[in-house]
């Protein structure tokens, strides 16, 4: 479990993390979303005790990271791609950390196997592809068999095979009762992997909700209607709690009216429909809506 209480980090005039209070629960995969510069990495570094908070606290499994006597068993982290010395072999990298962290030697072989790197364990990291480096980073995070796993952009640079591996791994770790907290800017990946979302924008917490709730809250589902008499139909559908947008001529995006009702009303008025499709809001759209500033967010309230 990760508990952030009023966590704040200031660099000069800039508030990188602004009074963030959130709890990341064990047993589920929690996605950490936000545009570049939103403060995700800084937050993760404060969780690991690498950066010192300006104010507030970050607790992992009940204590500040640095106060754990067995830190690598508490938290495993992948903080940035390729934080590896190019001249060292994958095995030596893991062995040195296992020794320093008081972990049994067998863990090195276990995580090499788990990340599919056993065959290249004796090779110098400098010759690794981005994807192999990323796998070694994940292996490093899992070295201590930690109760909490923190991964910053783990799927960056991975091929489809690797992306699937991370997804399966994250789900399995959560199913084992661990806390899994991972960031990504790939929304589609988040939608299929994360059960819960923590969203940051410009250093502030924007949302702390389940993935399903996040999608619903950001506008929910809509219906795409194509008709030669679209403008006329829009007038028929107008009402409280109904939003009708028209991005192109003859096409409407209707929210707040089910497909059946739209079809029936069109038929009653003798309006021909060329398309009537239920569409689900994408995570991208939801994210854009939530992280846009207030004025942009209000478009929903203006009927087209």
């Amino acid at each position: 479990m990760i508990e952030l209480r009023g966590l704040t980090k200031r660099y000069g005039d800039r508030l990188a993390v602004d009074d963030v209070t959130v709890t990341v629960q064990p047993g589920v995969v929690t996605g950490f979303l936000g545009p570049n510069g939103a403060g995700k990495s800084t937050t993760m570094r404060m969780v690991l005790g690498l950066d010192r908070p300006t104010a507030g606290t970050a607790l992992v499994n009940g204590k500040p990271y640095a106060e754990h006597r067995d830190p690598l068993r508490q938290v495993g982290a992948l903080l940035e791609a390729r934080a590896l010395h190019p001249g060292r072999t994958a095995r030596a990298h893991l062995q040195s950390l296992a020794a320093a962290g008081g972990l049994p030697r067998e863990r090195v072989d276990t995580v090499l196997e788990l990340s599919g790197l056993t065959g290249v364990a004796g090779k110098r990291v400098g010759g690794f592809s981005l994807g192999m480096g990323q796998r070694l980073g994940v292996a490093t995070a899992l070295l201590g068999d930690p109760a909490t796993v923190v991964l910053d952009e783990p799927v960056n640079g991975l091929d489809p095979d690797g992306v699937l591996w991370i997804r399966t791994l994250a789900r399995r770790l959560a199913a084992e009762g661990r806390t899994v907290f991972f960031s990504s800017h790939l929304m589609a990946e988040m939608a299929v992997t994360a059960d819960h979302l923590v969203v940051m924008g410009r250093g502030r917490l924007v949302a702390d909700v389940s993935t399903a709730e996040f999608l619903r809250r950001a506008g929910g589902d809509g219906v795409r209607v194509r008709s030669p008499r679209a403008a006329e139909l829009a007038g028929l559908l107008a009402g409280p709690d109904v939003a009708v947008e028209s991005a192109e001529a003859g096409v409407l995006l209707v929210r707040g009216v089910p497909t059946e009702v739209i079809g029936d009303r069109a038929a009653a008025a003798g309006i021909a429909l060329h398309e009537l499709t239920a569409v689900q809001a994408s995570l991208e759209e939801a994210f854009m809506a939530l992280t846009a500033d207030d004025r942009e967010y209000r478009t929903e309230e203006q009927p087209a």
Partner: protein
Amino acid sequence: MTTTLERPPTTAGLLRGEWIKARSLRSTWYVLVGSLVGMVLLGLLFTSTADDGGPGGNGGGPPGVDFAQPLTLALAGYNLAQLALGVLGVLLVTGEYTSGTIRSTFAAAPRRWPVVVAKAAVLGGLVLVTSAVAALVAYAVGSAVTDGMPGLGEDGVLRVVLGTALYLTAITLLGSALGWLLRSTAGGVATLFGLVFLLPILGNLLPADWGPDVVRWLPGSAGGSLLRLTTTADQFAPWTGFAVLVGYVVVGLAAAVWRLRTRDA
């Protein structure tokens, strides 16, 4: 989740971790073997040519360095070795910052200061052993090719030979401290060379009545006293001078520990 009752991270584990890190980089071995071979070969070159009107023949060289003394000639390669070893000291620290492994290192040892100590202990041990071997071999080779070499039992000779190893170890650790403080390879190397090589030269341009009082406090000059059979009035006594150099190292490492406490990694 397996709950294994393993020992918590220990000093021994930290030392072993740093040892694995140092030995798994080829640069460590290149520098150590290069310094050893370089010291022996340069000693051989200087001692074997001394009788043919080499540097010892005309009494040249910087003031205070007796090039007529075969012992000094046999160990003169230390000048080159300190360059390479000092860079190694800087590099083993800054390499962690440039590659980003420092974050994994501190994640494993969040109190941070034990890492500074463990790194210094492992590197210091490696360099001490290597340069002691290098100095003894250089002395033996020098003794074989020149007639005037004083015996190991003579006054101060063993102190100079093993003192060379102590001096090189201290310079390496000074490099390590600068690496922690500056986090930049270029900055650390430049500062180390400035302190050890450049400042003594500039110091020689100072007025004669107070210049030497400044110069002898510089790390290289102070520590260098340990490598002289006889010291002049302008220089510290051998062990006093070495204590001054050790003082620089201790202050440097303490400053590094203090900086690491508050700084973001």
